[in-house]
């Protein structure tokens, strides 16, 4: 008799497995959440606003990217556009996972999309690739997503509360930028992305004096166009 746990997991066991396989990433998620919480307060948000933003937006990189704009009282539409652009990777994630969710009601799909996180997405993708016939992928996804959300929020709120007692002289707001560096560096290893990153950086630095932080937008778009052109070029000449 084979073990029922390994061959026929129940939905509850799938949830627990989703949680269990996310936990090794706790230090990274925690550090990133903590830094985001601290950075929000260091950028001038008060505790209440920062906690609501953390709970509703649940978007570390978008929150960190928006902070300099909020501090400069940039127009709301620019903050929105920036948050959308920085979040675009989640469009790719949702395109990648949605095939398995087609049978669910639209509002369940919406909430499942809303709670996606970087680390749990990587774990979920690995499960789909290694065990395409796993019986309860949605339960596994939910376990990982909820665990990811809870770890992140605890760390973020801890950072928000602790920020008040951390002296400005520590320069801790740099840690928010370093968290973005940690996400960015592994993406630069592929060639067209690296070229796009280089162009985006140079254009953003040169365009720094443009009003409304438009240098950032210009940098992003130039980088994307260059990366896409470089990627398409060999295909066209084939």
């Amino acid at each position: 008799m084979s073990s029922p746990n390994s061959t026929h997991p129940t939905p509850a066991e799938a949830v627990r497995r989703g949680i269990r396989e996310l936990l090794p990433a706790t230090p990274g998620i925690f550090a990133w959440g903590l830094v985001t919480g601290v950075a929000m307060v260091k950028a001038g948000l008060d505790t209440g606003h920062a906690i609501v933003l953390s709970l509703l937006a649940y978007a570390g990189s978008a929150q960190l990217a928006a902070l300099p704009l909020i501090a400069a009282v940039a127009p709301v539409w620019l903050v929105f556009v920036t948050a959308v652009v920085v979040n675009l990777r989640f469009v790719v994630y949702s395109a990648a996972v949605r095939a398995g969710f087609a049978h669910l009601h639209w509002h369940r799909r919406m909430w499942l999309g809303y709670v996606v996180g970087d680390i749990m997405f990587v774990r979920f993708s690995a499960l789909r690739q290694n065990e395409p016939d796993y019986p309860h992928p949605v339960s596994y996804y939910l376990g990982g997503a909820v665990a990811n959300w809870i770890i992140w929020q605890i760390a973020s709120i801890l950072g928000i509360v602790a920020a008040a007692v951390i002296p400005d002289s520590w320069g801790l707001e740099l840690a928010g930028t370093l968290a973005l560096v940690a996400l960015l560096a592994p993406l630069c290893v592929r060639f067209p992305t690296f070229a796009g990153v280089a162009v985006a950086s140079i254009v953003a630095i040169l365009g720094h004096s443009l009003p409304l932080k438009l240098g950032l937008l210009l940098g992003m778009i130039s980088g994307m166009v260059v990366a896409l052109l470089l990627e398409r070029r060999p295909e066209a000449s084939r």
Partner: protein
Amino acid sequence: MSELYLWSVILAISFATLLTRSLLHVLGERVQLPALVEASLRFAPACAMAAIVASDLAYSHDVLEFNLANARLLAGLGAALIQLTTRSMAATIGGGMALYWILRWVS
């Protein structure tokens, strides 16, 4: 920063989260993205983060400091190396901050 402004940006960022993560789920599989759009989306996060990181590290208080005396810039480059070798976000943030504090202390 007025209350109205702050709540507006909080809602704007939250709506950006919902829009990017849930729109394709809600539309369902009927809607497929054009191949070119999907291809360019893959580069968007890296380019967006690069623009933000570069201008944040290269400038201090709106003055360009693109040189080796800029401790923030050096700490950022060091952090990138730590990330590429350790693949640990905690080590990247911790190591980068340590480098930043050491550089400020010795200069």
